[in-house]
């Protein structure tokens, strides 16, 4: 074998890796793929999702009955026939994850962009969900 990897090679390493916070987080998010983040602004909410290796055309975003669903498929990359796989951790193929919308949205004005493996979905608030100040007469 020409390449060796820095896998944890002692029990201590394993335990330390498992217990350290970043790895714990990492495990949690990989079991619920993709990792999500929702930030609420005055007139919209922005949902972010980590989707490395996924092309626009293999991604589907739907909004239905107050739920947002991001689903799709990570297509395997091309690999020459005679290649030998030495490490294969990119195992997520098909994914599907839903989130309850934080407020009513203007479904017709939802927009999304995918850049460097990060998906951003802009969910504009419906008129009723926007904050309003009521003037006292």
């Amino acid at each position: 074998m020409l390449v060796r990897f820095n896998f944890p090679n002692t029990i201590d390493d394993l335990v330390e890796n498992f217990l350290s916070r970043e790895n714990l987080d990492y495990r949690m998010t990989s079991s619920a793929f993709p990792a999500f983040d929702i930030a609420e602004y005055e007139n919209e909410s922005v949902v972010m999702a980590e989707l490395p290796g996924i092309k626009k055309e293999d991604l589907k975003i739907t909004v239905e009955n107050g739920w947002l669903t991001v689903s799709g498929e990570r297509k395997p990359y091309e690999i020459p026939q005679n290649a030998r796989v030495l490490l294969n951790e990119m195992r997520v193929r098909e994914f599907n994850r839903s989130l309850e919308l934080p407020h009513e949205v203007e479904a017709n004005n939802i927009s999304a962009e995918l850049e460097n493996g990060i998906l951003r979905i802009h969910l504009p608030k419906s008129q009723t969900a926007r904050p309003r100040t009521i003037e006292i007469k």
Partner: protein
Amino acid sequence: MGKNHQVALTRKGSTALMRPTEPAESFVTPIADVYETSEAFIVKLDLPGAAKDSININVEENRLSVKCAVQLVREGTPKLLFGEIRSKTYYREFVLGEGIDHYKTGASFDTGVLTITLPKSESMKAREIPIK
């Protein structure tokens, strides 16, 4: 890079060997794929949110290391409703065997995936020997 690199080497991804006086820097290990062809070793790493310019690839003697800080930028000060994505520093290293042509190492970054190509040196390439 010098000091951080050494810290990373002794830590091996854990905090076990860190002295308390050292600044705490925690890394996230990116998911990786590696395969070997007759011409090269190919390393792929998931680095979602990375900017091409912030990825640091270092080949030193028999070690390939990749480090990349990903800054989560939010406009203004929103109310955070759900947070699984954070600013972080990805770090991972690989020990390389002999027979890799370091100077011809190439890399590309697409859809949040970094691909590093480590070509084999001429003497290591598989060759079919014809029988005369």
